[in-house]
């Protein structure tokens, strides 16, 4: 067969293989998530043990017969965990059913005290929700299929004994001599949020997780700082771009026929993007080389940034779900009305723009953490909203970020920061000194603003002191004065610098500039 020259590209060649066809087709990833969120409650989900790890606590000290799964012990549902989950459901605009039930998920693992996990199966607390977030300037909505409550297992530490002169070391399970179990975490309330396979890009996943965490934090049901507070399983398959409809929808059969992998052991937003980017490239390369993607579970290795095979579909577990008779069904039909949730980030962002005249970027920065937004609002009520925005969104957050600190680290010092802004607003300290000296010293040395100003002698120079310095600078620098009168623009700046030097930086450069011009022009 002859092919007219210049007519090869884009035409199916009867001799081509599937691989060649696949090579041409653009592939897009289809991603769905199961996000496990630790809910912040005082006590565990089915017993009275504390959920709050003590400093340097010993293993297996925050336990009781119930969370240890001792023979005869029974679970009793912690109402606070159900309330927290209902709040999440409301924030996700999910349906809350009349009645919700618990099931047992049966599997053997040493971190699971009863060798079954109490979870929810056919009657989850939340169904059919959604979460809207921004990704690269566009609004995206991902559907949440369900969100349910369950208990967290304990944690394992795999130990390898080193040579005699070395301590035992924590290692991976396949290199371990033995493993130790700590049940302190067992029974911490978890909420599993299951999304539809609506993501088309690993970066979207990251944006979604950031938004989800933002919302959870606003609801006061989540502590991002707690170890293991967010764990993610993600499934990913590659399909041809042509199969994605204009509305982003993909035919059910196309989805079913694409082999997907489930990636486990993801514990951060960044890790999720990394794991899924790796997995997308891996699958894409396989398909381009004409190889099949195996349907399997893979483990994300955070250190290496890759995923490795855990088990294939043939080994998939049968969890033998059945109803947990020890926990009566909960009637929750009126809980959605009864339980209030605070203003959520999106709404607050809009309100900030309207009420304080902030631009989109500042409003976004100021609302991403509830503590920041609360602080901003408190400051903006007292002082100029623009000044407050600049100070909170740029200066304070910037300095905190530089020091790897979060606003939570200074929440008990918010009064001091308010005082600093007050000193700036009343011109008792210059903006420059406030930013470069006072704030930094406050953060580094834990002093109050007044203490820093006192110690560093940074109080705004008195007007007569500045006037004297201005007169001195004019007297001492006749050349510069001459240059000024000759219309040389740089001369005034030189003179301002001289005055600033004389006043130890405590004068306002704008004021100095004006005073100089007044004297020189007068």
């Amino acid at each position, binding site marked *: 067969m002859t092919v007219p020259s210049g007519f090869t590209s884009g035409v199916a060649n009867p001799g081509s293989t599937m691989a060649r066809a696949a090579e041409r087709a653009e592939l897009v990833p289809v991603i769905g998530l199961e996000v496990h969120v630790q809910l912040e409650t005082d006590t565990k989900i089915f017993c009275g043990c504390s959920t709050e790890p003590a400093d340097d606590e010993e293993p297996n000290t925050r336990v009781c017969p119930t969370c240890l799964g001792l023979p005869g012990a029974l679970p*009793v549902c912690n109402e606070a965990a159900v309330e927290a989950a209902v709040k999440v459901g409301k924030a996700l605009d999910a349906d809350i059913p009349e009645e919700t039930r618990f099931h047992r998920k049966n599997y053997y693992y040493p971190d699971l005290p009863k060798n079954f996990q109490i979870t929810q199966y056919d009657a989850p607390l939340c169904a059919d929700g959604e979460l809207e977030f921004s990704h690269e300037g566009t609004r995206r909505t991902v559907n949440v299929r369900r969100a349910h409550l369950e208990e967290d297992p304990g944690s394992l530490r795999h130990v390898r004994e080193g040579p005699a002169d070395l301590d035992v070391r924590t290692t991976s399970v396949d290199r371990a001599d033995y493993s130790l179990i700590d049940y302190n975490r067992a029974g911490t309330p978890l909420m599993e949020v299951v999304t539809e396979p609506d993501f088309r890009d690993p970066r979207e996943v990251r944006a979604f997780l950031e938004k989800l965490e933002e919302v959870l934090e606003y609801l006061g049901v989540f502590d991002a700082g707690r170890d293991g507070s967010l764990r993610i399983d993600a499934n990913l398959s590659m399909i041809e771009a042509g199969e994605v409809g204009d509305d982003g929808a993909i035919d059910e059969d196309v989805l079913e026929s694409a082999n997907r992998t489930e990636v486990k052991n993801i514990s951060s937003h960044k890790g999720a993007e990394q794991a899924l980017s790796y997995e997308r490239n891996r699958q894409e390369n396989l398909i381009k080389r004409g190889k099949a993607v195996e349907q399997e579970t893979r483990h994300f290795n955070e250190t290496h940034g890759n995923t490795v095979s855990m088990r294939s579909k043939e080994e998939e577990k049968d969890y033998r779900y059945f109803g947990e008779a020890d926990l009566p069904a909960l009637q929750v039909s009126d809980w959605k009305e009864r339980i209030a949730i605070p203003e959520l980030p999106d709404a607050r962002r809009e309100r900030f723009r309207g009420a304080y005249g902030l631009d989109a970027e500042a409003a976004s920065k100021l609302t991403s953490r509830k503590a920041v937004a609360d602080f901003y609002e408190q400051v903006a009520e007292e002082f100029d909203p623009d000044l407050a925005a600049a100070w909170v969104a740029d200066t304070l957050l910037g300095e905190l970020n530089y020091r790897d600190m979060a606003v939570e680290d200074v929440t008990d010092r918010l009064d001091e920061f308010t005082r600093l802004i007050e000193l700036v607003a009343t011109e008792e300290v210059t903006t420059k000194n406030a930013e470069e000296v006072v704030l930094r010293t406050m953060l580094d040395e834990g002093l109050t603003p007044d203490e820093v100003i006192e110690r560093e002698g940074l109080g705004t120079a008195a007007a007569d002191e500045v006037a004297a310095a201005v007169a001195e600078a004019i007297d001492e620098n006749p050349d510069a004065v001459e240059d000024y009168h000759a219309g040389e623009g740089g001369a005034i700046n030189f003179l301002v610098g001289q005055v600033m030097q004389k006043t130890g930086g405590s004068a306002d450069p704008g004021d100095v500039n004006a005073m100089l011009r007044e004297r020189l022009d007068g």
Partner: protein
Amino acid sequence: MSADDAPTHRGGDAADDLNAFITRETVVSDADGPLAGKTVAVKDNISTEGIRTTCGSAMLEEYVPPYDATVVERLRGAGATLVGKTNMDEFGMGGTTETSAFGPTSNPVDRERVPGGSSGGSAAAVAAGEADLALGSDTGGSVRNPAAFCGVVGIKPTYGLVSRYGLVAYANSLEQIGPFGRSVEDAAALLDVIAGPDERDATTRYDAAEGGAPDAAGVPDDTHPAEATAYAAAADGDVEGMTVGVPTELIEGADDEVVAVFEDALADLDAQGVETVEVSLPSVEHAVQAYYVIAMSEASSNLARFDGVRYGVSGSEATGGTEGERGSSSEIDGGDGNWNESFARAREEGFGDEVKRRILLGTYALSAGYHDKYYKKAQDARAWVKRDFDEAFAEADVLATPTMPVLPPKRGESLDDPLSLYLMDANTVPVNLANLPAISVPAGEREGLPVGMQFVGPAFGEAAVIRAGSAVEE
């Protein structure tokens, strides 16, 4: 508790040739309550702080609970003296107390015969006078069966009347702790002490309107019937005007000797002013199958925790590890992350044959592809049995049946044939499926062997069955 200095006896001791106790230990309470001066034996699947609780299994031969079951706390609060932990079929799985890892218990009426089970040790101890009272647990008849075979009184309370906190679960949707006594009044007095809501057991609640709404913590939103009823006072024998329903299906399967005693007792009740009516429970022909599917399914999950990691047999002998090397029970062999081998070793060593049989069958019944065929179908049958009982209680105040369809068998007679053993439960398991209260009282004797009569009441109708039982006693 004086766990350390108290002597511990095992079967074969001269003082206990019945082998009714697995652990003999006396714990005297200082409390001045309704059970002051009474001795009480406790089935060995009810947790006792500082006293080992074996469930009749080698798996838990050394297991000492760090806490008391709610019922044990209540016994102590009522001034009772605990005299020991009684023998039982392993994890409650059996009707003869022969599957115990600590050897069988003899029936004090005829030592060649079984005492029934699974609470055989408790019934035998009370029948032989080794304790005034005893606690058992009843999953499918395990209180009523040995009560009938040993000639004492046993009560299976409504599901949710008595806290299960501390009762080592066999089939948690079916079972209740229940009392034994030599008289109906004695057993009822013990029920008065143990019944009532418990914040540690979310199923101890009472819904005045069926399907009513307990709040999230399972806290009772209505007065629990136990708090408004004096059970011992109901043992007044005053049955004048009471209607007793006799379910034909549960008479047909019983042996002739048993039916003869049962009918004599009915005639006696008739003379006391009881009206007897025939009722029908067509669904009960499926009850035994449904019961075993549900009980075994739940057991496969409830007994999963016995893996040698935290307590119990660790299966370490097989790998040659010494106690010292594996001293801490939460230190386990990591291997390559495949823990199943270590778990399997512990379970192979620790469990007896009947327990293994039920775990295997239960696991199968819950498995993907079989779940609908077995477990779901059994749940449907359970709902049907409940409906049949509801209809029967529209016609009668209580129902009466022979407790056991047979006289107590000889030891070793039935062990080889699990199916015939399971069928022995025909009259008791429907009651557990329907969550109802029932009592077994001695109704007479045949060939020198006791025959028990069972009364079943509507949910939380303990007073009615106690009243009916006390009338038979007189």
